[in-house]
């Protein structure tokens, strides 16, 4: 559940970061096979850093799809720089992953 797939590639004058998180993103409105409501369980906060400096802070609601996908772009980053992404969900779980920038 706490794994994340990441890629950060230099494409001309920007670095494109793609992230695929593994998370159920339950809205709290879905019923299971027994008719019981499945409690809300979703990522609320995502932060990204470039060499330790914050570049993106995202707040999410329940409307982001299951196994969230995210692409963002960074100016001024170069090959070898480290991009890290951390998420926190509404049940207190968290995961962090980092990756070095490579040439596309």
């Amino acid at each position, binding site marked *: 559940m706490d794994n994340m797939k990441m890629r950060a590639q230099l494409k001309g004058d920007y670095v494109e970061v793609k992230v695929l998180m593994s998370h159920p993103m*339950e809205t709290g409105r879905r019923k299971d096979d027994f008719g019981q409501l499945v409690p809300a369980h979703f990522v609320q906060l995502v932060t990204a850093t470039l060499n330790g400096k914050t570049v993106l802070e995202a707040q999410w609601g329940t409307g982001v*799809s299951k196994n969230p996908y995210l692409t963002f772009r960074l100016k001024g980053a170069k090959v070898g720089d480290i991009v890290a992404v951390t998420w926190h969900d509404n049940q207190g779980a968290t995961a962090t992953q980092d990756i070095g920038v490579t040439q596309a």
Partner: protein
Amino acid sequence: MQRRDFLLGLATFIALMPVKVFAALWNKAAFESVQLKDASKYLNVNAEIPSTDIQIVAPDRAENGAIVQVEVKSNIADTEAIAIFVEKNPTPLIANFIFSNGAEPYVVTRIKMAETSDIKVVIKAGDQYFTNAKNVVVLENGCG
């Protein structure tokens, strides 16, 4: 105070602390609003200016509302944040992205759509707010 009580109290405090800090950060009122206008209000959005400098790429028709890919790019100078709403979802505010230190005002993500609706984007640039929207026809409900 008993040492044991003190330690127990301390442990509880530490256990609760990160959750509290984090809860303060997450805009609960905005994300739990069932009306788009309320969600906007809690994000402090005022006087939205329609702008075609906001590009929204999403399908015209989505087979499955559970996964609708949206790309948003702002060509507005000094864009600080991109908020994505789905007008007809049970809770319209989907996400709010805040950019800093060289991040471009660009994001791609996948969202849930309960029914055919506008995807509305609101950009924050300084004290001003700009907006654009794209309609997506949803053939199958994506909200559980």
